[in-house]
Structures are given as structure tokens and as C-alpha cells.
């Protein structure tokens, strides 16, 4: 098979989508942080939760950083347009992740200046705002954002040379005005909590926490479905921005529905994903299955992957501009050069190897579940 530029652009959109999908799954860490006080009613219980999550938080964080880096490398025009434009949104997201990064290590150390309650509050703020904001930001991949791109600006000597401009003073915060973005944000938030409950059920050996997690999972499963299903319905009913072969953008009614029909493999992946998420919720709640996290986890990855593929493949603009239609970004007009994508593709061959060692290390640490005794004894490194 000849590896063409178009193939590489699609391949990199797949990698970005996969990283995004893994990130949403790993947001279970945030989901758990947000529920510290709901599920953990005593200090010991909260410490059990924090230590259970604490062995995984870096994966989520690293996936977020890698997602950003890979997006930068493969679609730099998106990076410059969205980050430089939706300034407030991205700065807020950064802020809530900065406070997370120190909270685990610092929270119970003596002389920690801000106090354990503050660090736990950091974890909770990150746990709620992280998934919500990321979900809202990803919503704009479908609903569009307010920007204009003109490369000739870079020749405007003596003036402002930025090729990408944001057209509202709200700098990305205006995304909350579209209910679909909010619905997706809430969906991600509630899903992260469902996954967190399932993770606690799997990772913590304690009946009280198990029971509470199971019940909470039921609640958040319902809330998730209440937010996500309308989003999905609206998505398939709404117009999308499509690009013709010469790169001219136009609105296409039912674009995402057309994408689903025209890419049956993606449709199958999405159906399998949704089914798996539901299976996890049902077996977790009704059968108290410890394995629910695997069903819902894999289901989350498949569902998000297929959603993001719908956003970028099949000649769709993955970042439609609501201000200037022709400025909309597709994977073809915003990607890196063919050579850079080739180099990066060779590097991407390392990904299976990375996944393999993560898997191995994860298993070796998770072999023993967290218990009250372990947390009450201060012998090991603890958060």
C-alpha cells in the first residue's frame, strides 16, 4: 500500500482520537476525586480513595500532556488557533490540572503550608472542573467556535501578525451558550464518576466503599444517559461543516449522521462501545460485578474514539468556524507537512510498546487491592 499524505493525515487524526478516548477513560481519576466526600465519609476512607486514585493520576495527566503534544505536532494550526483563541478556557483547564499535580504528594505531608483540606479541595475542584471543561471544549469540535484564519496576516509588518484571531471577547467561554457543549461536558463529568465508582469497586477491598460506590454508580449512570443521549440525538440531527475536494467549506445537513452511515466500521465501533458502557453499568449495579470497569472502560474508549472519528474523517471540519465558514479546520488544511507526519508515524510505532509496559506495571501494582489495614499502617509510601 502506498502511504499518501491523505493517509497520514487520517492516521494522525486516528491517533489523536485514540489519545482523546484514552484520556476520557482515564478521567475516572478526576471522577473519583470529585466524589471524595460522597464516598469517603471518614479520614481513613478518604485516604483509601486517594491512594487508590493516586497510583493512577499520573497516567491521566501524562495522557493529557501527550494529547496536547501530539495535537501540536500533527495539527499545529488547531493548536495555534484554539489555544491562542479560546484563551480563557484553556487557561482554566491548565489551572485545575496544576493544582491537581501537587495535591496527592503534598496533602498529608507535615508542614505542607496550605493544609490537607486545601489540597483535598484542589483534588475536588480538579475532579469536577477537569472533565466538565474538557467535555465542553471537545463539544466545540462539533458545534464550532468563533475564529478566523488568514495566513496573509503574517506579512502585516508593523501591525498584528497573528494569522488566527478569535472573534468574541469571551475567548472561548461563549461555548457554554450552546446547550450541546454543556450536555457533553456534563456527560463526561458523570461518565468519569461512573467509571470511578467501578474502579473503586475493583481496586478497594472494602464492603462499605463497595456498597456506596455501587449505589452512586447507579445514580451517575442515569445522569450520564440523561445528558449524553440528547447530545447524541442532537448531533445526528444537526448540520455539520463539510469540505469539498478543493477545500471549500459548506454546511451539510445531517453531516454526522451521514458520516455514521458512510463509515460503517465507525458505526459498529460506536455501537459496540455504547453497548459495552451499558453492560458495565448494568452488571456493576445489578450483579455487583467487580469487572464492570473493564466493560465500561473499553466501552468508553470505543465510544469516544468513534465520536472523534466522526468529527474529523469523511471530509468533515473537526473545528468548524462559526465566525468565518471558510476558516474552518479540517485534517487536511490544518495538518503538519507530509514529512513531519511520516517522522511522527515512525515514532508512533512505539505506542504499542508503551501501552504494553504501562499494562505490565499497572498489573504488578494492582495485584494487591487497597485495604483499610494498609492505609492505617504507615509503613509504605502513601498519599
Amino acid at each position: 500500500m502506498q502511504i499518501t499524505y491523505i493517509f497520514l493525515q487520517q492516521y494522525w487524526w486516528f491517533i489523536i482520537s485514540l489519545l482523546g478516548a484514552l484520556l476520557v477513560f482515564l478521567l475516572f481519576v478526576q471522577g473519583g476525586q470529585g466524589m471524595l466526600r460522597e464516598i469517603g465519609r471518614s479520614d481513613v476512607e478518604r485516604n483509601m480513595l486517594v491512594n487508590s486514585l493516586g497510583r493512577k493520576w499520573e497516567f491521566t495527566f501524562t495522557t493529557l500532556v501527550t494529547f496536547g503534544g501530539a495535537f501540536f505536532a500533527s495539527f499545529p494550526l488547531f493548536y495555534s488557533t484554539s489555544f491562542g483563541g479560546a484563551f480563557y478556557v484553556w487557561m482554566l483547564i491548565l489551572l485545575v490540572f496544576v493544582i491537581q499535580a501537587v495535591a496527592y504528594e503534598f496533602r498529608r505531608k507535615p508542614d505542607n503550608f496550605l493544609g490537607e483540606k486545601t489540597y483535598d479541595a484542589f483534588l475536588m475542584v480538579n475532579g469536577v472542573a477537569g472533565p466538565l471543561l474538557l467535555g465542553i471544549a471537545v463539544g466545540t469540535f462539533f458545534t464550532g467556535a468563533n475564529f478566523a484564519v488568514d495566513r496573509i496576516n503574517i506579512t502585516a509588518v508593523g501591525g498584528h501578525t497573528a494569522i488566527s484571531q478569535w472573534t468574541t471577547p469571551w475567548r472561548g467561554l461563549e461555548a457554554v451558550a450552546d446547550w450541546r457543549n454543556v450536555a457533553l461536558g456534563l456527560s463526561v463529568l458523570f461518565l468519569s464518576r461512573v467509571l470511578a465508582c467501578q474502579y473503586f469497586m475493583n481496586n478497594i477491598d472494602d464492603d462499605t466503599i463497595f456498597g456506596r460506590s455501587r449505589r452512586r454508580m447507579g445514580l451517575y449512570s442515569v445522569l450520564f444517559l440523561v445528558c449524553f443521549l440528547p447530545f447524541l440525538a442532537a448531533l445526528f440531527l444537526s448540520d455539520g461543516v463539510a469540505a469539498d475536494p478543493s477545500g471549500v467549506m459548506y454546511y451539510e445537513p445531517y453531516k454526522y449522521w451521514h458520516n455514521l452511515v458512510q463509515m460503517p466500521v465507525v458505526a459498529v465501533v460506536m455501537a459496540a462501545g455504547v453497548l459495552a458502557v451499558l453492560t458495565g453499568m448494568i452488571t456493576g449495579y445489578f450483579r455487583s460485578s467487580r469487572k464492570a470497569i473493564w466493560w465500561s472502560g473499553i466501552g468508553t474508549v470505543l465510544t469516544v474514539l468513534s465520536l472523534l472519528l466522526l468529527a474529523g474523517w469523511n471530509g468533515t471540519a473537526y473545528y468548524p468556524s462559526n465566525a468565518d465558514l471558510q476558516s474552518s479546520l479540517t485534517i487536511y488544511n490544518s495538518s503538519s507537512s507530509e514529512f513531519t507526519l511520516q517522522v511522527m508515524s515512525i515514532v508512533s510505532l512505539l505506542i504499542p510498546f508503551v501501552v504494553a509496559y504501562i499494562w505490565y506495571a499497572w498489573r504488578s501494582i494492582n495485584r494487591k487491592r487497597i485495604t483499610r489495614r494498609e492505609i492505617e499502617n504507615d509503613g509504605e509510601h502513601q498519599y
Partner: protein
Amino acid sequence: MQSISELMQVVDWSRAQFAMTAIYHWIFVPLTLGLGFIVAIMETFYYKTGDAFWKRTTKFWMRLFGINFAIGVATGIILEFEFGTNWSNYSYFVGDIFGAPLAIEGIMAFFLESTFIAVMFFGWNKVSKGFHLTATWLTAIGANLSALWILVANGWMQYPVGMQFNPETARNEMVSFFDVLFSPVAMNKFFHTVSSGYVLAAVFVVGVSAWFLLRRRENQMALRSIKIASVFGMASILLCVFTGDGSGVWVSRTQPMKLAAMEAHYDGSEGAPLVAVGILKPEAERTSNEDAFYFKIEIPKLLSIMSAHDVDAYVAGINDLVYGNPERGILSASEKMERGRVAIDELARYREAMENGDSETMQAIARKFDPQTDEGKEFLSEYFAYFGYGYLQSPEDIVPNVPLTFYAFRVMVGIGCLFILLFAVVLWTGYRKSLERTRWLQYVMLWAIPFAYIASMAGWVVAEVGRQPWTIQDLLPTVAAVSRIDATSVMVTFFIFALLFTALLIAEIKIMTKQISIGPKNE
């Protein structure tokens, strides 16, 4: 439309924000780079001997490593995204080249670090001794690999190679990955930077151990830690000196203005002396080598040796670079500005032709940007090479802050030299087995810690302040790299992060000192 003064405010606040985050990040990173290896060496002793002493020692230093690591991660994420938020034009103009090392850093290095650090901290009773040791080494290697990729990216900004400008996309595109990766500037920068981190970590371990000796606690742990750290530190500082020498040569070739500013060297000369110590006059009074200093002590010929390894080499001065020196074939900045504007105008003409569907004009201009044609070779080396100068307002814009660069360089080198002496004395005293008794040396070791941080930070000041106004040397000044945003937004986020990072720094110092005073724990 923003006025020029508003635009300059955005540039200044964005620079301030980036500098602030980079400074906070760099407070923590060098210790991670070096302490990772020191801990791994200690654990290797544990693995080989099975002696519980080494496990206890390893776990003590590992605890400090963990506290420091967390805050390094926290301050690092901002830097990556700030390229997009504050420097969006930069991200587009060179994202094709600059993005790749960042992505590779994520895929290759960050996962290695974050996966195995979990094994390192939580795996003591869960995995085999061998696997645990491997995890510790992999964490250290992962941290250093992260440094490799980000420094490759930084090296490329200082010396852009392996790329070609594409008028169709109006950006620079990578044509050789290996030229970017193995650029001599990048390699020198990598080894110089990581070895300086090892030195800092060694000074940290030596200093903290000295504190225990002063308190007459944990003598055995302190003495053995000093031994490992001082050998590691001595080897590292020699590497640091060697790569520093290499940096001097490359700076003189690729960033002569940085070298001139570092030395407050106003008039170019052959066999140039180096000012070992000096006090600069205010900017308005500095016009030549004669009137630049209130007072100076010079070492003859040393600047020529440093910059070209030749006692009689010519070293260009600030005045030569700003006003030109035809005898030496140095173009004036105003000439470069004119040529840069020609290149920018050609790009503008190309974009207009594109809009109008004028393929003839497009092809004609494309040939100028094509290095395969003779016309292209000439245009690229005579005009496009000065593309970034086209954005400047006056020739003097190419001069960075001279006093800051000059003093920072002397602080870095001065403290570095003292550290060679320190490690030599510590090694000698250790060899004589009199470290426990030599109280004055214990105090010196302890108080050396802050100096390691000062020297390390000064090094980055030289590298980054010295290259102003460029984000990419000669191709993109900060004024053309910044996002289109209002200064107030940047200012507000600057203060939010400044406040947060300061609070976290205080927390980290308090936690760290507390953990040191608790000392190693018995199992």
C-alpha cells in the same frame, strides 16, 4: 486594531508569563534530573549487597525526589500549552518542526517516567527487587529523555536547521529530522543542561548530608551519600565545563549578538580579552569597549579562545552587529531589516497571487523559496535568512539586555568554578576520612545548595535573555510570534499563576525541610 504600544504590552506580558513559568519549572527540574540517577545508584548498592542500610538510604532520598517531582510536573504542563495560548503565531510558523519533539517527549519519555515512578514508590512490597531497581533506573532515564526532547526543541529555536519555508502554507516545514535532533547546538545544550542538573543534585545531596553531619545524626548515611554524590558531581561538572566550552564556540557562530551581550563587547577585535570581573555603566553611557565599564579586570585573548579556540580570532561586537562592519563582511541590522522586508513582501505577493488564482506569479515566487534552484539559493541566503528582521522597528532592537546577560554569565561560571573546588575538597577530605570532623566544610557544603540553584537559573538567563528579540533566531521575533490577545488577559493569568506557584514553592520548601529533618525512617 491594536496599536503598536498595546501590541508591545502583550509581548512584554507574554514574555513575563513565559519567563515566570519557565523559572518556576526550572527550580524543580534539575534536581529531578540528577537525584533520579543518584537514587538509582544507591538502590543498585542495595540490590547488590542486600544491606538494609542502602534500602533505608534509598527510600529517604526517594521521598525527597517524589516531593520535588510532583511540583515539577505541575509547572511543566503550563509551559507546553503556553506555546499555543500566548505564542500562537509561533506555534503555527514553526509547529511543523517544533511540535514533533514535544509529541515524542510525551510518547517516549513522560509515560516512561510516570509509569515507573508509580512502581518506584508503591512497588517495594509488590514487585521483585530486580523489577523495582529497573523501575528506578527507568524513571531517571525517562526524566532525562524528557529533557533531551525539550532541549532539542529549544536548541532548534536558537539554531534553526533541517527545515524549509513553504510559501503555500506560510510556515517552515521540516525536511530533515536528524538535522534537528543531532544539531550540534541541540546536543551541546542537552549535555550542558542535564550535566548542570546533575551538579545541582549532587550539591543538594552533599549539602543535605552535611546538615546531618552538623547535627551529628545519621552519620553513616550522610558520609556514604556524600561519597556517591561528590563523585557523581565531579564527573558531571567536568562534563558541564566541556559542553560549556562547546556552547561558547557555537554561540559565537550562530548567535554572535548573544556572545557580544554576554561579554558587553561593543567593538569587535582580534585577540579579544575576556572581562573576568566588571561593573557596567548605565545603558546611555555605554557606546564602546572603553566607556562600557566603571571598572573591569580583563584576561587577555580569552574571549577569542572561548569563541573560536584561536588566540587571534576576531570577535564581533555589539556595534559591528548593529551598525555593520563592511571590512569583516558584517551587514548592518538596518540592511538586514530591509532584506527581511523584501522576503516578507514576496510572501505577501505570493498570498495575493494565490487569492487571485495567478499561478504564473505564484510559480515565479515559489522558485525563490526553492533551495534546489540557483535563484532560490540566492534569495534564501541573501533575503529569507533575515526574514525576522523585517518585523523589527529599529536596528537597536536586536540588542538584548546587556547587564542581565553579562552578570548572569559571570554568576554561572563563577559559581561553577567554585563547585569544582568544592567537590575536589570534599573528595579529598572524604579520602582522608576527616569529613566528620571538618565542621567548616560541613557548613560550606550546606550553604552551597542555594548557590547551585542560582547558578543553574543564571545559565538559563544567559541562554534566553541573550537571544532576545528572537523566538527563532533571525526568523521570528517575539513581536511577530505572539497571540492576538489583550494585555489584560495575559496580565491577569500572569498574576494568578505567579500567586499559585509562589504558594506551591513555599509549600514544597516547607515540606522538603520537614522531611529532611524527619530523616530516614526505620522499617
